[in-house]
């Protein structure tokens, strides 16, 4: 069993490499020249890999802690909160990258804490209430964004593109910082796979298996939010990668987080680079914001999962 899991993971790695290659060379106009390749395509593909990793990693961890395969930083409102964090940092004129990132993280953490607080009854946080809380938080932050829109209407096109999620504005320095946060958080979560596996069995059971539940949950929530915030800080709101990818990966490597986390990271990277390649080639010379495309593909999938669970009586 271990051997087949390992070969699946190797297969996923190879897929990611192929997809990255495809992302580099695929374009609306023949083969790109060296300049485009190195200065336009390469950063974009790298950014796609990182953000895909971060979103899918974040989704996997949220789903594990909340014991629900429908959780995702976008649905829970974490991404929109981080977006507002970024906009606020810009508004305050903080162009320091760390300030930008920590604003995103701060907003993300407070929103997930808030949503969790609203939803929690008798030590449990039912997913319907969490999703509802997420929607409410998103609505609120969307309203905040519209306020920004009307104040900074001159920049509204940039803001709009940012809101819809895009891999075009890859600032190298911000990319390095975000990438470091994503990979570090991912490593922390992977090292806590056993705790995550325990938590999926219920918090009390996890405690009876020797896990310090509150500590583990705090670390994991922070790490998952850090990944979401880092992704949002560089690429805006790209939804549903965190929902769909862990679900697909569970079908391939099973629910054990020791395999699921690396698999989701690789799967997320592939899916996002692939979607982005599609986003910039389907209607040349224009391009669709990649976040719009992931939402177009992700929403039906979400509905399908929701319906399936409802039919199975799992609500």
């Amino acid at each position, binding site marked *: 069993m271990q051997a087949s899991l390992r070969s699946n993971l190797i297969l996923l790695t190879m897929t990611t490499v192929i997809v990255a290659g495809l992302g580099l060379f695929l374009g609306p106009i023949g083969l790109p020249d060296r300049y485009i390749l190195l200065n336009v395509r390469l950063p974009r593909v790298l950014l796609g890999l990182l953000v895909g990793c971060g979103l899918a990693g974040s989704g996997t961890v949220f789903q594990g802690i909340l*014991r*629900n*395969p429908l959780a995702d930083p976008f649905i829970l409102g974490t991404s929109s909160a981080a977006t507002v964090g970024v906009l606020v940092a810009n508004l305050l004129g903080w162009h320091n990258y760390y300030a930008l990132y920590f604003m995103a993280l701060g907003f993300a953490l407070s929103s997930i804490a808030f949503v969790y607080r609203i939803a929690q009854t008798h030590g449990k946080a039912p997913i319907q209430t969490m999703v509802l809380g997420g929607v409410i938080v998103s609505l609120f932050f969307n309203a905040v964004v519209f306020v920004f829109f009307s104040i900074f209407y001159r920049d509204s096109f940039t803001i709009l593109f940012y809101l819809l999620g895009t891999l075009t504005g890859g600032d190298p320095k911000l990319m390095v910082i975000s990438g470091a946060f994503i990979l570090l958080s991912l490593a922390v979560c992977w*090292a*806590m796979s*056993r705790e995550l*596996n*325990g938590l*999926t*069995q*219920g918090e*009390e*059971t996890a*405690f*009876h*298996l*020797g*896990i*310090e*539940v509150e500590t583990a949950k705090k670390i994991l929530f922070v790490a998952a939010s850090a990944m979401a915030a880092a992704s949002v800080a560089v690429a805006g709101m790209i939804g549903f990668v965190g929902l769909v990818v862990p679900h697909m990966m*569970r079908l391939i490597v*099973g*629910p*054990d987080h020791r395999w699921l986390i690396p698999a989701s990271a690789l799967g997320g990277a592939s899916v996002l680079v692939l979607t982005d390649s599609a986003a910039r080639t389907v209607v040349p010379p224009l391009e669709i914001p990649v976040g719009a495309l992931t939402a177009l593909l992700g929403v039906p999938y979400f509905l399908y999962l929701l319906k399936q669970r409802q039919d199975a009586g*799992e609500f």
Partner: protein
Amino acid sequence: MLRLEQLSFSYRTRPVLQDITLEIPRQSFLALIGPNGSGKTTLLRLMSKVLQPSAGKILLEDKPLSRFSARELARRMAVIASDQHFEFPFSVVDVVAMGRFPHLNRLQRLSSQDWEIVDQALRLTCVDHLRLRPISQLSSGEKQRVLIARAIAQQPSILMLDEPNSHLDINHQIAVFNLLRSLNRQHRMTLIIVLHDLTSAAAFSQTIALLHEGRLIKTGSPREVITSELIRQTYGAEVEVFPSPLGGFPQVAYGPDG
């Protein structure tokens, strides 16, 4: 092994348990019974450190329970709570292997010795043939046995269960209780079980503790505790109690009024 001294617990301002003193010696088989709301599940949650007492203390091996870390505790006691989540399709063997968590360091893998313990637990509970099946697809009787297998893999000295026979058909109930009895006798585990069903409490346990409105009314052998007098007092039910033809333990019988 486990000692409760003048234990009280309040939920906000409502007292749930009051002044419980109870000594649970090594290798005992204790059933906690009482009507709904009598506090038996709360008592189990206090004894497993899920809840903290408002007053009084709990000593495990003469050391306060509060001084044990989750990990230290999990090596000594396994607990099967009544609410179980199987949202993710972990296989039976994965679930049972989780019983080894408290014995492993972070990132340490299960050794061949750990796998041997897991295999033994699977065989002992007769779920070996289900090992690769996702636990979410099993029947409730099978799930209960898998959870007991996970508890066995923890190699605890105390095993606590909350209503292990609820939702089980009678054949599965008998199988589960016989398994628990053999864990108690052959594997020298101390068993503490919250039970609804007086018949199985009387048939399988050595000691019964009867709770009523948060107080411990009586502790003793099944014959001492399961009496028509005490049942009337606590449950408010008219029942006849007579010795079972299967071994003399008390059996509760009831019928229509008049």
